[in-house]
């Protein structure tokens, strides 16, 4: 991604609106304002304070960027990163559907092959070894029941 001049400013604007939404919409809807006598703070006090701080600092970020011309370095996004994130999300749904063992086997194999197609037979052996050790250690030694998945329940 090319280095943009106003990324910080745009982030600042986004955060400012986020803080406004939190302060005026989300917090009043999600937290009951209750007072328990003198000196007691409302449960909404800290969330509101945090939103105010975010709002104020986002204004500082906007000011620094648009008026003082400051822009922190923004790292490049590799095209692979998005795919890896999609793999992670698919893994979550895979575990819910197929259970930890099957989903892990598929996820590991798919991700390894995606990263490098050179030695896929070796990948299968490594994954099988990993799954066996995982099963023995977590299920048999620690008695941790790993997710079974909707299909195998």
């Amino acid at each position, binding site marked *: 991604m090319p280095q943009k001049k106003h990324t*910080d400013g745009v982030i600042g604007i986004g955060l400012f609106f986020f803080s406004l939404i*939190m302060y005026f919409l989300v917090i009043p809807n999600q937290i009951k304002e209750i007072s328990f006598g003198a000196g007691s703070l409302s449960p909404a006090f800290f969330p509101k304070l945090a939103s105010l701080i975010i709002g104020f600092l986002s204004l500082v970020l906007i000011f620094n960027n648009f008026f003082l011309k400051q822009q922190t370095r923004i790292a490049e996004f590799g095209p692979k990163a998005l795919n890896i994130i999609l793999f992670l999300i698919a893994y979550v749904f895979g575990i819910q559907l197929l259970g930890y063992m099957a989903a892990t086997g598929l996820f*590991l194999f798919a991700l390894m092959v995606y*990263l490098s197609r050179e030695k896929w037979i070796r990948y299968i052996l490594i994954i099988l070894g990993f799954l066996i050790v995982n099963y023995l250690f977590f299920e048999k030694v620690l008695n941790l029941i790993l997710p079974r998945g909707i299909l195998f329940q």
Partner: protein
Amino acid sequence: MLANLIAGVVSILHVEVILALAAGVGGGIILGSIPGLTATMAIAVVIPFTFYMDPVISISMLIGAYKGGLFGGSISAILLGTPGTDAAAATILDGNTMAKSGRPGKALKTALISSALGDMLSLLALIIIAPQLAKLTIQIGPGEFFALIIFSLTIIAGMGGESVTKGLIAAAFGLLIATIGLDPMVGIRRLTFGVPNLDSGIAIMPMLIGLFAVPEVIEQLEHPLKRNIPVLKESDDPADNRLSFREFKRCIKSILIGSGIGVMIGAIPGVGSSISSWLSYKTAKDRSRDQEKWGTGIVEGVAAPEAGNNAICGGALIPMLTLGVPGSVPVAILMGAFLIQGIIPGPMIFEEAGPIVYGIFASLFASNLLLLIIGYLIITYAAMHFTRVPKVTLFPIIISFCFVGSFALNQAFFDVKIMVIFGILGYLMRKFGFAPAPFLIAMILEPFGERALRQFLMMNRGDFTAIFRQEIAVAFLILTAISILAFIRKQMKKTAIQRVPGS
């Protein structure tokens, strides 16, 4: 204190404790030696193995992984010239030069002995200082504690890297996220959006595994996968691959300097092991009679940063144990492990969990010895292999560990989803220049700060100005104001530099 320490030693003299420690140290060294994996990652990977253990064993295993991870970073720094962890970057100067000139064995052994000695000296400082400091801090009331947390948060925002404003925004987000769940005083739901799993708040472990381990893996995988193959030739002369007693004597001054700096830097929240190792290197060099030889591959140049970065561990545990303030990410993770085990770090820890704390002190001592033994075996027989572990198989497996680690504690799949959400958030934060460390530490400190402020206001019938009548609180508030002014000055200086044409 001596009786407590002896009781602590007796409590860890069990096979399972020693095995857990050895696994933590060994795992930490192996993971730390792989380029791209930090000591934080070493702890994150070890976490799932510790949930079902006794508090002393589990925390010792995590501390073992932390120490092993710090030392492991120096293996790749020396053999590959790529630091496994940021903390080991200063070791490259002399360590990698030694390796390239046929003396990798000597450099690795110097690093090992210096790391273990630095660790040992910082442990002594911890054992001597922490109980005494706890006796002083026990008198701290809610007002002072709130002021201390405000001060810590301001300092920690400095960990935001390039931009203090972004560090503070990350910390404010941490505060906001920490308020999700039941209100600590009156039990009302806050920001749960009707999701029952959120009543107990965002679980710390899945969140931090997501925030730190997942983005690290994504970043490693998104770049082209190169295998690290060190082209090193070992000298045929055995003297070139061992550390002689004369050389060790030459290192003692560097080790002492590095250890002193490490303990001090470790005790200051937000500074970190990377600065400690560079400062140790520079200070030891400035105080050396042969300054011109530094950087050409001398043992003192390896000893100083290695002692400096490992001595961080004991130093960093001092504010965490006595005040409940974690100064760095690995220590914040350790604090999370304490909380999960029902131990609340802070002034009362020696009163409430004395035997456990002394057991942990004893296990820290044992883990130092194990670091020497396991570290020696690894650098003699296997170091080269670990630096060559292919990323394509290792990193996907680490992600799988992250999933188990997030699921294991509460056996709740909801926590896995939290881990993935924070993993994506952590990745975006890194890319847009928001350091995740202030976020995490603010999130851990918020419940303590909020409780302290609310107790203080109830005690003073809502009069916040009463805080200005408490000397310690005022001192912390003044320090906070000074830190903010220093940040503003730094920011203005930076702007002035940027405005000078061509600068």
